[in-house]
């Protein structure tokens, strides 16, 4: 049961990681297209330079959890290297609990902000107007994935199979 849950979480994280990879491709293409169209036709559609920022936001927030699972985030190992395996495990558990404070706050705050934007019909400043709650939803979404991933890592650490 636990295995299935963990595996599903990984698939969901991988899905958003893949979305982020697509976002990188889209960013590259739209910025280059912007340059190409501008230098041939004189002006280019504004969304070509507006959307890359949204893609970057998607990338920044939603790929974090998968990178966290793969332990690819940058960590300061100065103290860890001098700890016994047991002490290191305790440090890891404490760290995961503290990280939850950040994840939950980001999730809660992000939900408030995106929800209010939805409620009040807040639109983006871009030339093609987009409801702001769509890009803003990347914040609570990314944070929710981090909450789940944090819990999964905590469970593994407590069971001792991390």
């Amino acid at each position: 049961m636990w295995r299935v849950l963990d595996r599903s979480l990984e698939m969901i994280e991988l899905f958003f990681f893949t979305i982020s990879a697509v976002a990188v491709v889209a960013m590259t293409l739209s910025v280059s297209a912007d340059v190409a169209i501008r230098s041939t036709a004189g002006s280019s559609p504004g969304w070509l330079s507006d959307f890359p920022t949204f893609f970057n936001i998607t990338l920044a927030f939603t790929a974090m959890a998968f990178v966290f699972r793969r332990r690819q985030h940058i960590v300061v190992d100065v103290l860890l290297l001098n700890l016994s395996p047991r002490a290191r495990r305790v440090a890891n558990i404490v760290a995961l609990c503290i990280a939850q404070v950040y994840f939950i706050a980001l999730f809660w705050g992000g939900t408030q902000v995106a929800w209010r934007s939805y409620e009040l019909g807040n639109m983006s400043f871009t030339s093609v107007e987009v409801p702001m709650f769509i890009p803003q939803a990347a914040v609570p979404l990314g944070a929710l994935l981090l909450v789940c991933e944090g819990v999964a890592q905590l469970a593994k650490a407590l069971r001792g199979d991390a």
Partner: protein
Amino acid sequence: MEHVLAFGGLILLLMLGLPVAFALGATAVALLLIHTGNLYDTTQLAIAGFKSIDSFVLVALPLYVLLGESFAAGSISQRLYRSASALTQHMRGGLGIATVSSCGVFAAISGSSMTNAVTLGRITIPEMRARGYDKGLAAGLVASGGTLGMLIPPSLAFILYSALTDTSVRDLFAAGLMPGLLQLALLILFLLVMARIPASQPAVSWNERLSALFTAGWALALPIIVLGGIYGGVFTATEAAAVGAIYVIAVNFLTDRDFDLGALWRSVRLTVETSTRLLSIVIGSSLLGHSMIILQIPQQITAAVVALSLPPMLILIGLLLVLTLLGCFLDPISITLISVPIIFPVITAFGFDPIWFGVLLVMILELGMITPPVGMNLFAIQSIMDDLRTTEMWRAALPFVGVSAVAIIVVLMFPEVATWLPGILR
């Protein structure tokens, strides 16, 4: 009390092995919640976190990372490497000098120091290591060379300083050039005199050099396209990253038969990994900056120094030390936004040259990019080197912190280094 919590809490979380990005964010949340006691206040962190990425300038980061990754994935990099070897192997430290100099050239393209380090690091560090350079030396060299991005014009840091202080961008750009070149010279001097670098090898014939240069033609055209496009008014530095990435990918497909769609997809995935590592730290760092501003921590520390009854020069040195301390923990934009409004009136009241102070500030911000525990360029290098531990990175950065400090002291003692060029251009 909150001061201790802010700096001490962050160090503690980092030591526990919490990823840097989350340690910064958790400290920001804890500070704010302890200060206001209201969970609802975390909404402003969500707004600030979104804002930290909601900028077209930051789009340059993943684009330059993609450029670096696709460069490293194709044979274009090996050909550049062979050509660099043929040209420099008879000179002691030749490759290192070429690397630092390319940091100087890239600084004239990009206004940011982290993109500078991450892009050039991906291209040059593997080459240096293959040629027997120590891993730490190669890492430290690029981390430090990358900081030139802020000092050598164009520089986003100078544009921000100008807007906050009503000083001339033209003067600031001109003033940054000589100190930038000074720092470049100091880096080369350090490399030749103090660093352990591999011995020189016999020179290859001019014929061989020319043919190596010819095979690297595709790679050598890249800076020409990028610089030409930017200075010719075809595209901005951010757009140059996308054009450069497309160029490198196209060259890979045309000239390297091993580079297929699978290789491209791998480059894109690596780009997501590297960018996410760095962007998540950018988010965490702006959140910590946000909380510190709300709690008025940097404002109070700076005000305390200003209030000391000391001669102006000592106050200035005190302020520079405070900025250096802030540089250990916060990102350049936060530091500038927090400190300049408080410090600038004091500086002008004492009669110091605002352009000179701008240069000193940017040099300190640069120093902050390579000082632990939070040094964005150190993270940039770590994000592209899998076998480099934090401990090693910090140790490697130490001598370069010294080099930057020497450059700062020179500009502090001889303001002419900064003020001479804008003076004659005026």
